[in-house]
C-alpha cells in the first residue's frame, strides 16, 4: 500500500502543471465631436498693379492667405467674407471695393470660388487658399500701409 502511495506521489510531482488560461475583453471607447476646426497658416500679401489702381494678392509679388480646415464629418460649409473696408489705410482709399475668392484642395476641391459662395466640406482636411483684390473707387492708391481682414468661415 505504501509503495502504491509513493508511486502516486511521484506521478503527481512529475505530472505537468497545467494553468487555467482565462481571457478577458478590455473595451476601448472614443468619441469624436462632429465639428470643424480652422487653422490659419499664413496671412496674405496684396501688391499694386502698374497703375496703382488695384491691389491684389494674385499679382506678381503678392501672396494668398492660407489655412486648413479639419472637418470631422459632413454638413459643414466654408465661405470667405469680403472686407467691408480697410482696417488700416490712407484716407484716400475710402470707398475701395473688395473681391475675395478661394481655392480648396485636399478632402474638398474647388477653384476660384467667389468668397460669399458657400462650399460643402467633405470629411477630412481641406486646404484653403484665399485671394483678395481691392479696387480703388476713382483714382490710384497712394503710399501707405493697407490692411484688410478676410473672414474665413466654417459653419
Amino acid at each position, binding site marked *: 500500500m505504501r509503495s502504491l502511495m509513493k508511486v502516486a506521489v511521484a506521478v503527481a510531482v512529475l505530472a505537468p502543471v497545467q494553468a487555467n488560461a482565462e481571457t478577458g475583453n478590455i473595451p476601448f471607447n472614443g468619441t469624436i465631436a462632429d*465639428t*470643424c*476646426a480652422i487653422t*490659419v497658416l499664413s496671412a496674405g500679401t496684396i501688391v499694386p498693379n502698374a497703375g496703382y489702381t488695384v491691389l491684389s494678392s494674385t499679382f506678381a509679388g503678392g501672396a494668398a*492667405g492660407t489655412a486648413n480646415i479639419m472637418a470631422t464629418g459632413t454638413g459643414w460649409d466654408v465661405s470667405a467674407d469680403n472686407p467691408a473696408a480697410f482696417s488700416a489705410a490712407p484716407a484716400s482709399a475710402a470707398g475701395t471695393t473688395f473681391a475675395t475668392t478661394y481655392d480648396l484642395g485636399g478632402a474638398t476641391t474647388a477653384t476660384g470660388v467667389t468668397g460669399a459662395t458657400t462650399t460643402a466640406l467633405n470629411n477630412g482636411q481641406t486646404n484653403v487658399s484665399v485671394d483678395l483684390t481691392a479696387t480703388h473707387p476713382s483714382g490710384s492708391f497712394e503710399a501707405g500701409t493697407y490692411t484688410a481682414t478676410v473672414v474665413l468661415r466654417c459653419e
Partner: protein
Amino acid sequence: MNKTTSLFAGALCLALLPSAAIAQAMSPMRAEVTSFTDSFAVRVYPANPYQHRIRIEVKVYDQKFREVKDAVVSPSVFTLGARFSRPVTVMVPFDGEQKRKVRICTESIPFPGQTTRIKAQVCGKFLGERL
C-alpha cells in the same frame, strides 16, 4: 420672470447640452435648446488648435449675420492657451418670439500686422424654443 427662475432654466439647459471635445475649434456646433423663460442658454467650448496661445472672441449673430447685441456671452473675449479649450456660456433672449435661431461664432486673429489678415470664424447654429 424672476432672476432665480431664469438662472435655474439656464442651468437646466446647460446640463442637457453635450460636453466638449478637446482640440476642436468649437463644440458643439448644432443644438436645439428648450427653455421656459424669456431666454435660452447654450454652453460652447471654443478650442485653440494652434501651438501658441491666441485671442478668442465669441459673438452671437442672427440668421442674417447681424450681431445679437442683447445676448450675454461669458466670457466673450479671452486668451486661450495652445491646444486648450474652455467653456463659454451664452444667454440668448427670445426677443418676444417662440423660437429663435442664432449663430454662435468663435473668432480669432492669429496673425496681426500683415496686409491681408484672415480671421478664422467657426460658427455653430442653435435653435432655442420656448416651452
